[in-house]
């Protein structure tokens, strides 16, 4: 009897898993237009850095972080851009926005086995909101 039980359980499992398919995760639908791009997928590991723009060359944005570390990220078609919390279309981007010295926050996806010029692809580039500048500086 016990053997039958074990066999039944083990035979059941392939049926169970064949029913899964791949990518059967069902994240909730995005409902808020303000939702940040780095939540596209809850399993995509992203990192963020805030710093000043060093330059933009051939689609690669380089920034210098507060700790004087330079980080280069590739801008992709999927990269979203924001001014403050508001999303902007890529055709609204002006050259002046990428001027060296301007402050940005980049959220990027690091790749461990990417064999290209950069191992980080920008998920989101967030420019400072002009309104923020008029506010008093807050620091810890």
């Amino acid at each position: 009897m016990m053997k039958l039980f074990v066999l039944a359980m083990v035979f059941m499992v392939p049926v169970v898993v064949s029913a899964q398919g791949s990518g059967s995760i069902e994240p909730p639908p995005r409902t808020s237009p303000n939702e940040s791009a780095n939540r596209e997928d809850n399993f995509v590991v992203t990192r963020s850095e805030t710093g000043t723009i060093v330059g933009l060359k051939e689609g690669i944005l380089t920034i210098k972080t507060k700790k004087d570390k330079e980080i280069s990220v590739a801008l992709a078609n999927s990269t979203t851009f924001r001014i403050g919390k508001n999303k902007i279309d890529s055709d609204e981007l002006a050259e002046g926005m990428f001027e060296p010295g301007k402050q940005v926050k980049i959220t990027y996806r690091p790749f461990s086995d990417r064999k290209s010029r950069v191992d980080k692809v920008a998920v989101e580039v967030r420019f400072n909101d002009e309104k923020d500048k008029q506010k008093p500086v807050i620091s810890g």
Partner: protein
Amino acid sequence: MSESVEKSTEKTEESSFSRLLPLTGLAGLLISSEVVYLALLQLDAINGWQPVLTFWIEMAALFVFYFLAAVLVARCESIKKFALWLIIFGAVLFRVTLLPAGIPFEYSPSEKLEAVRSDVLGKEVAYDRFLLFDNDVWRYVWDGHVTANGVNPYRYAPTDPHLDVFGGESVEFDETDEFDELSDEASSNAAGESRNEATDGLDIWRDIRDNVNHADVTTIYPPLAQFVFWLAHAIAPGSIFVMKAFLVLCELIGILFLALTLRRLGLAVTSVILYAWNPLMIKVFAGSGHADAILVAAICAAVYFIVCGWKSIGAAAFGLAILAKLSPVILVPFVVRRVGWRRSLIVPGVVLIGYLPFIDAGQNLFSGFLKFAREWQFNAGPFALIRWLSEFVTDDSASMARMICGVLIFAIVAFLAWRDDLSDGYFVSSSAIALGAAIILSPTVMPWYLSWVLPLAVMARQFVWVYFTAIVLAAFHIMIDLNEYAYVLWLEYSLFFALVGLGHRFARR
């Protein structure tokens, strides 16, 4: 005379040797585990084959040391007293070691220390968004922040514009201010000149808000969890380190109650090692900071008080367990029969008192939870089979599968309750089976859900759950390329059900 003295000296030497050897072995396993935990801190936990494979190898090594240590402790009666101290020391050491997990892996130890300092002081967001592949902890920090500012976390999702000011965003105030819906304290924070007040004077909340996952869904964490989030915020606003430390503290309280319960049940206290050194538990709480640690403390306390016969306190602790996570609600039939009908009223009383401060959220009180229950599916086993079969009879296979699994869980609990002999052994055993079944039949089997059942499994000697804590690590394969692969799930659930069958076979023998 001299012969007998010689014999006795030999015996003493033999006995100290027989003690020393297993103790040295246990200490060696402790040191080996610690080395691997330190290596885990250096893991660049990002998507891809290499990081996930490295993670699996390190966790596999930890599980090997863990199982060896458990066998050593179980087999050597002579070292039990000393072993307990080593177990406690290891449990604390491993957890403290993993608290900085999530701070950029490339930092040197001194840079990590500095990053922890900045995190605790709220100077910067020092942790990466993902802490060993998980990122739920940001929601706790955010919930603690809005609660401390007088906002009901069940009312607004983190992305809600009402909360912009608490996220350090620029907000323009006018007479038709949207904040008049918020509580008085929140309004004054938001509408005053001060974004400064609403952000505790810290420039970290925008980043923290950005890091929250499913930020368009209101919080799903019940009031006791919210209380712990608020408490951690009161000590160090925005600190991931302090939040994790609080959760680890809850877990350690749970371990203490587990050890006390083992003693009460007449079992070896040293078998607490099965929980205290479990690498999955250490990873998910100290490493990734999951809130289920609060449930571990509450459920272990409830079980201890109930088996001690302190029924009212037991009922209150059980109410707290439901306030930590809703899942223990399925254990109500076992608790009610033990504490009696009158005392069992304490349970809904405690739950009601817990929810009372948040009642103004109205229908939003459970909207996050219901959304989660309706829409999530991850690492599912039997649920997926039932769903697949349901596709032949209905278009809404997910709802059908949820209903069938719900009925199955109900049937299992009803069957266990019907056979209840009111003994302590049956209580822990049936509770472990009921909670375990709820996990296995769930559409979402997150690895940290096993913390609900593991303490009970240790008390009930149901080792299949201990083994499953290792097997469930397969779920992390999704971090390779964001896909769930059938063959991995096949392996995961084949092993689990085979172990269930084998367990039954051995038990009958």
